[in-house]
């Protein structure tokens, strides 16, 4: 149990350090123009990677399971402008249903 508390403390500090490193070392100096055009695209690249890892990842492996159907539902719902709660809860429902039927 001590290990769990150490883990929580370390992760709290490490996450804070990662969030603070840029703002505290760079100050409020502007980034060079070339860097800005890259920064603008960062969210798209990172979010897409998160979608992939959370849909297909299982530790250090790729896997196809019922999450894929949930994610597919999310894509369809989002393109039809469904509210976020419908997208998220619907994805869970589709995944649960697929597992029930499997």
């Amino acid at each position: 149990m001590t290990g769990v508390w150490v883990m929580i403390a370390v992760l709290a500090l490490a996450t804070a350090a990662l969030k603070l490193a840029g703002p505290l070392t760079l100050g409020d100096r502007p980034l060079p123009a070339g860097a800005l055009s890259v920064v603008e695209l960062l969210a798209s690249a990172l979010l897409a990677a998160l979608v992939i890892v959370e849909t297909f990842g299982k530790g250090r492996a790729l896997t196809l399971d019922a999450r894929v159907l949930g994610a597919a539902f999310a894509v369809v719902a989002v393109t039809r402008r469904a509210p976020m709660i419908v997208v998220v809860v619907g994805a869970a429902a589709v995944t649960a249903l697929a597992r029930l039927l499997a």
Partner: protein
Amino acid sequence: MGAARAPERPGSASERRRAGIRRGIPFGIAVFAISISFGVLARPLMGAVAPIVMSILVFSGSAQFGALAVLAAGGSTGAAIVAAVLLNARYLAMGLALAPSLRGRASSRAAFAMTTVDASWAAASIGGGAFDPWYMVGVSVPQYAGWVLGTVVGVFVGPRLGDPNALGLDALFPAFFVSLLFAEARGRRRLAAAGGGAGIALALTPLVPAGLPILAAAAATVAASRLRS
């Protein structure tokens, strides 16, 4: 869902923060559902109190689920720490992007930077590489409330729920990120960055420790930034 990006608003700090809070409410509801699943999954491994403290202090879905996955697979807490830190390494890049938009003393810049989470950071982008810090704080408020509250609910209802995967709770996270991605990836260059990031994550996941593929996906932005918009 609202508009894809925060419009450039000249309003006062409190107006922009309130606008952010309104924008963050649907995120908060989604995050509430996701953190219920965190509480449910964490309780058997960490007990009742530790998952709640973790959500209060760490406030990071990907890192908390990542650490949990390692513990559930029988890994050490050391391995769980490494996995979670790697999963959060993207905050380093996000912080570098945010830095020029933060003004004032170091303590004030640090306070703003601490409220960074994926959805708020993406929503607070106002184009041209700039961010609206007060808007970001606002978007984070409902998410923090939802995250902590959901963990509490998950920890206490968890033992009565049965197998969380049977409820499809592991599909909540990908769906949340799909939602954020569609709001963000508009236009040729962003779509190219998203496609490249997805490709890098797919290619690297079997090859390197969890978390690194997400960070490496940032490299896709370099190629995509050379495209005409």
